[in-house]
């Protein structure tokens, strides 16, 4: 925009044009970073650049990206969903501990956990106007606590991941294309189209841009927020079930470690924490970057401690770079 304004006085400089291009097409910058990371991995281990490896990256990126999808929607409404890790873990655990009574029922129960948590969050945020950070933080405690209580009473029952869930989470369809990619693609297509074209998507952006104006314009904000958190709850459940299938286990800390990366993936992908700005395609790139970064650190055989430090610094560097580029253009 500022480039257009300046263009009337003088022709834009090439560097300005470049920056404007980057801002208009953030995926290009993210793609370049992803390519650089893949090149770094390939230098370290030449066989990295292969179909099998790509399949592995996609398999591990899928649960993160699906959780980050819910996070993106919540961020778009100026919210955040800090209960997604706990919800995903609970959904996977409930599914796995009910696996003996039929797979469909087990998966439905798992998704039911996501629905229930999402409804509770949505009612709190949408109707009682509790800040999303607090509401979802409180729910995370409630869900984790209930799960611990349930698990301690269920020691004899045991858990078992149904074979179809294992197939979807960890197996491949043809060659190296993982089954979970199909699910992930479906989620992506629906979400990207819905955010761009549907009334729901437009409302999300409009509300995130200016909640007060939208409320004054007569929008029923509670419906939008309820839908948002139900969706993020369901996506958390899907992500948890997928992760359980991938690692073929459902323990009590399964998906907790995905929560903060899901926020990071959305933010690296250009979603603003202040709402109204962001796309799911950006988030997908964010999730891929984080997953490849993770495998790079594994390849470099970095100690867990240094790994965390590098991980944190790179996230910081990426978001800072992004913020600078966006501001100057």
């Amino acid at each position: 925009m500022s480039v257009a304004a300046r263009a009337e006085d003088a022709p834009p400089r090439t560097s300005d044009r470049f920056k404007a291009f980057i801002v208009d097409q953030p995926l290009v910058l993210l793609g370049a970073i992803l390519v650089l990371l893949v090149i770094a991995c390939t230098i370290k281990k030449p066989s990295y650049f292969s179909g099998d490896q790509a399949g592995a990256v996609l398999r591990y990126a899928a649960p993160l990206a699906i959780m980050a999808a819910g996070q993106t929607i919540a961020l778009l409404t100026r919210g955040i969903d800090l209960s997604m890790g706990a919800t995903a873990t609970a959904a996977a655990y409930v599914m796995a501990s009910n696996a003996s009574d039929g797979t469909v029922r087990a998966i439905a129960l798992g998704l039911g956990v996501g629905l229930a948590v999402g409804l509770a969050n949505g009612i709190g945020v949408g109707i009682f106007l509790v800040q999303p950070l607090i509401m979802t933080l409180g729910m995370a405690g409630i869900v984790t606590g209930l799960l611990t209580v349930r698990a301690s009473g269920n020691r004899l029952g045991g858990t078992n991941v149904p074979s179809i869930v294992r197939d979807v989470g960890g197996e491949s369809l043809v060659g190296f294309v993982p089954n979970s990619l199909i699910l992930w693609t479906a989620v992506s297509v629906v979400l990207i189209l819905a955010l761009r074209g549907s009334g729901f998507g437009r409302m999300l952006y409009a509300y995130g841009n200016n909640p007060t104006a939208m409320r004054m314009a007569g929008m029923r904000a509670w419906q939008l927020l309820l839908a948002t958190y139900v969706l993020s709850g369901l996506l958390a459940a899907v992500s948890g079930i997928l992760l359980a299938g991938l690692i073929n286990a459902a323990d009590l800390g399964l998906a907790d470690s995905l929560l903060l990366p899901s926020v990071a993936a959305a933010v690296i992908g250009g979603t603003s924490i202040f709402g109204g700005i962001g796309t799911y395609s950006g988030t997908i790139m964010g999730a891929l970057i984080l997953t490849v970064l993770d495998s790079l650190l594994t390849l470099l055989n970095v100690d867990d401690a240094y790994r965390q430090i590098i991980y944190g610094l790179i996230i910081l560097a990426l978001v800072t770079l992004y913020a600078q580029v966006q501001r100057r253009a």
Partner: protein
Amino acid sequence: MSAAGHVAGAPAPSRAFKLRRAVSRQAWTLGVVAILVVLLIIEANVAPLFTSFDVQSLVISGMPLAFAAMAQSVVVLSRGIDLSVGSVMALTNVIAAQLMQDQKTLGSALLISALVLVIGVAIGTLNGLAVVFSRVPDIVVTLALSFVWAGVALIVLPTPGGGSPTSFQELSTASDLWEWIPNGLLILAGVYLVVWVPLRSRRIGLAMYAVGSDATAAGLSGVQVGRTRILAYTFGGLFAAFGGLALTSTTGIGSPLSGEFYTLTSVAAVVIGGVSLAGGKGGLLGPIIAAFILSAAVTVLVFAGVDANYGQVIQGALIVLMVMFGGLLLRRRG
């Protein structure tokens, strides 16, 4: 806003109005104190034998969280949020435990504590610099930095270990003055009185509140917004280092993963304690008391025969319900 609606030219507020205003300004803190008192009364009744020991264990379990809540509060007051509080606590905890391992005297332990506090101040300042100069939202920067500090903690001490002299542990676990007033409580009160009380009425403290309620207006009135925000993180780092020392003192050792619980729980304590996440409103006393509420609630329920695993459920429900209830109250008052 409405309570402070004293317009120039209007008659001076009456004494009754001033009193009402004072009560309404402190209403939240008073409410939180009332809840803590009720909890303690319940505990005294359901506990098989309520002695000064129960007060001691409450202080021991609540003290690190109280410092975490103080650290989070200063930052939230100036409209930030610090998701690295837990990692910084863990880092200072392991540094202290590592250095104190072979120390025998209280004097040397205190000297090391002073060094750890300086480290906390440095880390906090770095956090603040990163937030202000990257111009990335606080929540993202401190989230990324939480990985960094947690990693450094793992380098200092890969597994729980280290140690501290008994005399240093007694700073939080014993009660030298009177059996009902544990030392930990005195230290907490001391830090509050020595650091926060002078700070809040001085230029820096006022600047923090000003930046928290409206950074643009504060900047236009000559407050150096960037510097103020960095300073808020600096004090956050100082309080987090106190929290880390409290962990070393109460547990006797250092653990690189000891901080995980404190980051998000400190946010909860801040909100329950009446500090607005939108900045500029509240103080440090509310969150400190809220930290003890969160600790005491679990103890009370365990005494009442509830499965200890429900602790997290109760804390979560407490957070949500108090904020919901508080929101409704504030809205009715207009």
